[in-house]
């Protein structure tokens, strides 16, 4: 019996805290395209899963299946006027979605320069600065993307302390129930 208990403890200790079971969607913007992938927290990517994207509440943008790395890509029609939500459905009960707020599409593309009161000088300078802004945005996006991915993964990581506290909460609850039962009928 002690050996059994010991082996249970050892196998529990060898569980990688990262291993888990929940579908998440990571979505980001690359140029004009929306790309991303579906992953199980610590447990691989969702391959060949159905995805669909909607703009705002119900304007469908496209659908398809994720590739061998769980990736999807779609190019929304410009300009984007509402949040884009990508939903991934593995068709056996796992569903998750990610929303890209419309402000992230804002960038320079959606800022029509002619909407501002144009002066001659500004109009001349506009194309150059617009190009620079686009370049800067692309560069920043490239730098920031790994961080976003990292944050998403860390956000949903399982923590060893959480797991242990769960187990001990169950033990504590059992103790409380036993105490209550013992009080009720003076123990059996």
């Amino acid at each position, binding site marked *: 019996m002690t050996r059994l208990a010991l082996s249970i403890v050892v196998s*529990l200790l060898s569980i990688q805290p990262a291993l888990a079971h929940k579908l998440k969607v990571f979505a980001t913007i690359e140029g004009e395209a929306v790309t991303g992938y579906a992953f199980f927290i*610590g447990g691989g990517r969702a391959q060949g899963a159905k995805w669909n994207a909607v703009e705002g509440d119900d304007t469908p943008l496209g659908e398809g299946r994720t590739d061998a790395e769980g990736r999807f890509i779609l190019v929304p029609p410009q300009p984007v006027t509402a949040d884009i939500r990508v939903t991934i*459905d593995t068709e056996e*009960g*796992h569903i998750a979605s990610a929303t890209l707020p419309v402000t992230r599409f804002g960038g320079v593309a959606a800022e029509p320069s002619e909407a501002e009161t144009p002066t001659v000088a500004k109009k001349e300078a506009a194309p150059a600065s617009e190009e620079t802004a686009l370049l800067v945005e692309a560069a920043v996006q490239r730098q920031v993307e790994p961080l976003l991915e990292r944050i998403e993964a860390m956000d949903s990581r399982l923590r060893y302390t959480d797991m242990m506290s769960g187990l001990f909460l169950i*033990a504590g609850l059992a103790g409380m*129930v*036993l105490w209550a039962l013992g009080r009720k009928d003076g123990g059996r």
Partner: protein
Amino acid sequence: MAHIPDGILSAPVLIGGAVIAAGGVAMALRRLEDRMVPRAAILSAAFFAGSLIAVPVGPSSVHLLFTGLMGVMLGLMAFPAVLVALLLQTVLFGFGGLTTLGVNTVNIALPGVLLGLALGPAIRAASPGRAAMLAAVCGALSVAGTGALVALSLWLSSPVFVPVAKIMLITYLPLALGEAAVTAAAVGFLSRVQPAALRLVAT
């Protein structure tokens, strides 16, 4: 898979699930015996930890449920055992959701409880080898039952999210086989070493 998140199921399904789960828990607690408490806690802890070890399978990832074993060893007490573990998984790890707690409890616990009621007496009376075989059937069928209930709850809520039978089969079949092996090993061992651990009522 068995942990349906918030915001997908419709209100009638959520309420129906919560009512059935509450009924199951109430029935279990009314005839609670203190010798069942540690057993329920151990299996609840096993389910809690077991769900954290997931294996990727194609578009999905699966993990053991231990519900067949719970049905045989706990009977109705499987309801509170699953409920407690699911609650902790939701609060600590964000699996499933608080609103779907009732539905998820029913989806996971009910098949095991029913199979435990149906096959339990035969398992307790049988020789260790036969008991292990029956337990394997119990484990595999309870996984299949959970899959069917998950599909049913999704289908009742929205036709958009209906699980596809082929994919269900690909993901649930290996799980049912694994579950059968684990349940058979546990029940076979107990029926050889400590048959009293399989009985629900003290004799």
